[in-house]
């Protein structure tokens, strides 16, 4: 046996080519959004350091003042300084967003995996139930829950929003769990006597965490929107608890007096924050699609 037939003929020796320019690590990552969002969060967290006035003080001499050197963002119709309110109120808006998303995620994960692990009939029943829940207008559910919880405050709003926004994540969790529930490691864990929460935490969560990450970020976003919408409509935070939403609830008076800054500034902060979160969320979701178009 000679190795002659295994030697290739006419192979041109090629030098190994390494990419000369490394792609910068920031490529495709939402750096700008992260920076802006971090900035907003930082400023809100340390609001006391940058506030120029007391945000709760009603300066009745200077109500509805346009932005100027003394009141950087102007004052609202009650004479409060908008610049200070933005940072001070942002804290509550962001807190509600994060807390509500956390609540809804926990409910969604538990409900979704229960439904995913349950026998077929129970699974169908639970999924039907979520569909029925979805068919009650969200606004009405919020009104009911608010009435149950009594006078609205920061926590009750976060709870209400969390309780009304878990269904879609639960559906995704359920689908993911159904796909992996019969895999060997889950069965093995069960046979060794692993409880529901053990299996959930050790075996299921690592599998679906990536697919719901995007939705969780989006939930923070929609919770912030929900808070501001509710406060604006007068069923969310009362006007004395400052948040970006409750700042906008003065809009009616602002429109009548054409005080555009009362509408524009909190709204801009809201939109920029939401935009940054969307960018980050989209980055998390982005499935790398590099194939060529056949068209």
């Amino acid at each position, binding site marked *: 046996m000679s190795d002659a037939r295994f030697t290739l003929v006419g192979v041109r020796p090629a030098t190994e080519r390494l990419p000369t320019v490394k792609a910068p690590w920031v490529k495709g990552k939402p750096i700008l959004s992260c920076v802006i969002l971090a900035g907003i969060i930082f400023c809100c967290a340390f609001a006391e350091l940058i506030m120029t006035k007391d945000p709760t003080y009603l300066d009745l001499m200077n109500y509805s003042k346009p932005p100027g050197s003394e009141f950087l963002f102007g004052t609202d119709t009650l004479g409060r300084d908008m610049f200070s309110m933005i940072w001070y109120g942002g804290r509550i808006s962001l807190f509600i967003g994060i807390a509500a998303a956390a609540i809804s995620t926990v409910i969604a994960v538990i409900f979704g995996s229960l439904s995913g692990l349950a026998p077929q009939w129970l699974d169908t029943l639970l999924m039907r139930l979520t569909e029925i829940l979805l*068919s009650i*207008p969200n606004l009405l559910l919020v*009104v009911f829950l608010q009435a149950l919880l009594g006078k609205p405050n920061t926590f009750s709003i976060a709870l209400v929003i969390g309780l009304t926004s878990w269904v879609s994540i639960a559906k995704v969790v359920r689908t993911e769990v159904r796909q992996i529930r019969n895999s060997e490691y889950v069965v093995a864990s069960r046979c060794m006597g692993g409880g529901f929460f053990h299996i959930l935490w050790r075996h299921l969560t690592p599998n679906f965490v990536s697919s719901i990450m995007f939705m969780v970020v989006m939930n923070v976003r929609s919770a912030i*929107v929900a808070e*501001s919408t509710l406060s604006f409509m007068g069923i969310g935070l009362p006007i004395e608890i400052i948040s970006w939403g409750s700042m906008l609830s003065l809009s009616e008076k602002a429109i009548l007096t054409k005080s*555009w800054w009362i509408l524009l500034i909190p709204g801009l902060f809201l939109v920029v924050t939401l935009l940054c979160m969307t960018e980050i969320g989209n980055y998390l979701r982005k499935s790398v699609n590099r194939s*060529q178009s*056949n068209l």
Partner: protein
Amino acid sequence: MIQKNPFLYYGKKLLSFCLSVFVLSVLVFYIARLAPGDPLMSYYGERVEKMSVAEKEWARDKLGLNDPIYVQYVRWLQNAFRGDFGISFKYKQNVLTVIGARIGNTLLLGGTGFVLMFVLALGLGILCAWFEDRWPDRVICRLGTVISCIPEFWLSLMLIMVFAVMLRWLPSSGAYSIGKAHDVGDRIRHLILPLSIVVINHLWYYAYMIRNKLLEEVRADYVLLARSKGLNKRQILFRHCLRGILPSYFSIMAISVPHVLGGTYIIETVFSYPGIGTLSYESARFHDYNLLMILCMISGVVVIFCNILSQIINEQIDPRIKAQEVVETTEVKRA
């Protein structure tokens, strides 16, 4: 999965529809009555403050609010089957009359918005897919992402501020000017702002979905084949790719009805537009039970029907769509 016996298939769907509606009615009935609050407030208004305990008791008895909830429910159900949904506490009229006066407005706003959105999203999505990664696509994508981040109530406020208050071009609220209820031009002028909000707010979401679905589609092998046969870009895109994505688009549009409906509620409130959105918001806040019940049933029936419709579309027309995909693409918008 196409079943052999169509009667069985649609019978099952019908059964699950009826069951869902029934459960929904029980749920809403109980939630409404368990939420604290005094329904007499909406019936007697301010006068409640002056009523004695005995008078209140008599009033509650008259309205049938003292019975256990299940007794009330059974009574409501029996009457409902005869077509009698009770009277509205606030308007002291049959609820159907109250709703009848307003539902047209909502249908006009929501329906026109929905159709416009449907067509525009399709156009925009195709445009983006056509110019994939070139400047029109990039500009539209950027713009769309920004616009989709704007909360609808804030956008409404800004538009009111600019077009109604500063420029005075369009009216800021209502469905028609006083005394001009039958003036079509006036109605249209009142419809422009709310309608544009409905469309703008949801447009990008669907356009983006179409774009992505189309881009997925053009990477399929049959497009390469069609290309090599000598078909041009337009023919392939419109005749083949579009046909491939339309079923899933229809089913997603069907699922999205509740989002549009919910959005319409908020927009109606901002514009004080006399539709059923403002009505149901009022009735929920002031415990106008019968009115609330019928409104929830109407929207619930529409939503459940659309859900089942989309299931049927999925299963009958395009079995490739998995439930998973539909779920993934719809949750973003739920606010």
